């Protein structure tokens, strides 16, 4: 019985794969690959050494763009949230810049940084910077006044107050923000690689399509993007289980 329940999700995935296989076999024009062709595609990429190379290239860009954004945006957002007047001044500007899709910056980033890694990293940076700033801003605004008062009562200096009260009080929300933003950064790196660079998983997809309609490699690229996106998300989620942070997630 128990095993049966455990097997159901696997059965569901297997059924989907079979349906995919049958549908691919019977399509009018044999363009889209079946699951087996995709598996072979992944194996081929691994053999040619491209798989690891492209994954590393994509991760390299995401890491640099995302980490730089986090290092700059979190202190900035905390400061803006802490001082009412700075929030008044900058919030409207942030709200206008934030919905500009980072992809709309592609021409400008190519103009500034040329076609290459830097342009893509800049796009990831843009995609992460404002969402993280806003998360930090809102997290500060959401600290209960009691917490801040209790901290001030013990005679902490301003830097101590930031390090010992402000930062731990916002940490749980910051981590949620980091997780959501990393998801967006992963989405943007794929787009950026389709347009602005010549390596990475996004490039693999566009290149496989343009150079000879290798749709098995296109779908192989999609699968790899999904798997790595999932791993990034799981990694970020595991941070939410840290004991000194868990108080912030009463919901689930």
């Amino acid at each position, binding site marked *: 019985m128990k095993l049966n329940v455990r097997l159901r999700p696997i059965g569901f995935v297997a059924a989907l794969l079979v349906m995919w296989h049958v549908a691919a076999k019977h399509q009018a024009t044999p363009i889209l690959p079946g699951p087996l062709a995709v598996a072979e595609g992944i194996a081929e990429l691994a053999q040619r050494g491209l798989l690891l190379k492209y994954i590393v290239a994509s991760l390299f860009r995401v890491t640099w763009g995302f980490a730089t954004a986090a290092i700059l945006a979190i202190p900035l957002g905390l400061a803006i949230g802490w001082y009412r007047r700075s929030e008044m001044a900058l919030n409207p500007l942030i709200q206008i810049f934030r919905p500009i899709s980072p992809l709309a910056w592609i021409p400008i980033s190519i103009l500034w940084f040329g076609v290459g890694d830097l342009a893509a990293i800049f796009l990831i940076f843009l995609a992460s910077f404002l969402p993280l700033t806003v998360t930090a801003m809102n997290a500060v605004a959401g600290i209960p006044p009691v*917490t801040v008062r*209790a901290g*001030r*009562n013990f005679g902490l200096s301003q830097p101590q107050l930031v390090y010992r009260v402000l930062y731990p009080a916002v940490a749980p929300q910051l981590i949620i923000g980091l997780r959501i933003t990393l998801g967006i950064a992963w989405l943007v790196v794929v787009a950026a690689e389709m347009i602005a660079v010549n390596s990475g998983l996004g490039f693999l997809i566009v290149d496989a399509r343009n150079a000879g309609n290798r749709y098995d490699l296109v779908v192989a690229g999609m699968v790899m993007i999904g798997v790595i996106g999932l791993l990034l998300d799981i990694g970020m989620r595991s941070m939410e289980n840290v*004991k*000194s942070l*868990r*108080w912030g997630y009463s919901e689930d």
Partner: protein
Amino acid sequence: MEQTMATTSMAKTVMVPAQATKQTLKPKLRAEGIDMAFTRDGTSVPVLENVKLEVHEGEFVCLLGPSGCGKSTLLNVIAGFLSPTHGQVLIDGEAVRGPDPRRIFVFQERGVFPWLTVEGNIGFGLFKLSKKERAERIAHYITLVGLQGFEKAYPQELSGGMKQRLEVARALAVNPDMLFLDEPFGALDSITRLIMRRELLRIWEAERKTIIFVTHDIEEAVQLSDRVVVMSARPAKIQRVVEIDIAHPRDISSSRYLELRDGIFEQIGLAHKV
């Protein structure tokens, strides 16, 4: 440990009777003509009106009034978290300009830091001590409030009463000379509340802190304090100050207790009948 605390406190009370101190010493705290108004939607709403109050060294004073009357605001002004529209608060002859670690505010149990363990919370204000001293101090206060075995627990693993004791321990650990308590036992069940009251009295008698305690519970005020400051509803004014001249431990069925209690009930406009 508890044994020795109790004996020293008794020695202290014998040597310096509370009544004598009150008359001879300057007031520890003096609030002079405090007015306080908040602006809401462009209009000014008065919360405190011409509040004058003196509290002596080692005294236990209750601010009593209906919910939302402004007694919490007064306590926040005294603690330096809010600055009054008019008037000033003097402590030891010095004007209060902000919060000070010599005077610790105990919030309802919401004031404990959820990201720190019991040890971390108690040690929060002890950053100037050496590591060894800090550990000793933490251990001492964990025992004092009976949280042994929960040193590494996070607040969300504690009950309301334990969190409350934790907050009191955190306050006492920095050895302040005044404690401000804002309806500290309001969220507790009635049994825990009784235990906490006894604990607080024990700690007060042992360490002789000056305590200002905000409550809307008449019984609580009469059971605990040397004086009850009865406040009117918004804007809060001091209606009357009632001296509770019964020695601790108090017999809550004595005629004097009932007389004082019913006097306050009447003052607030409630005859004590059900």
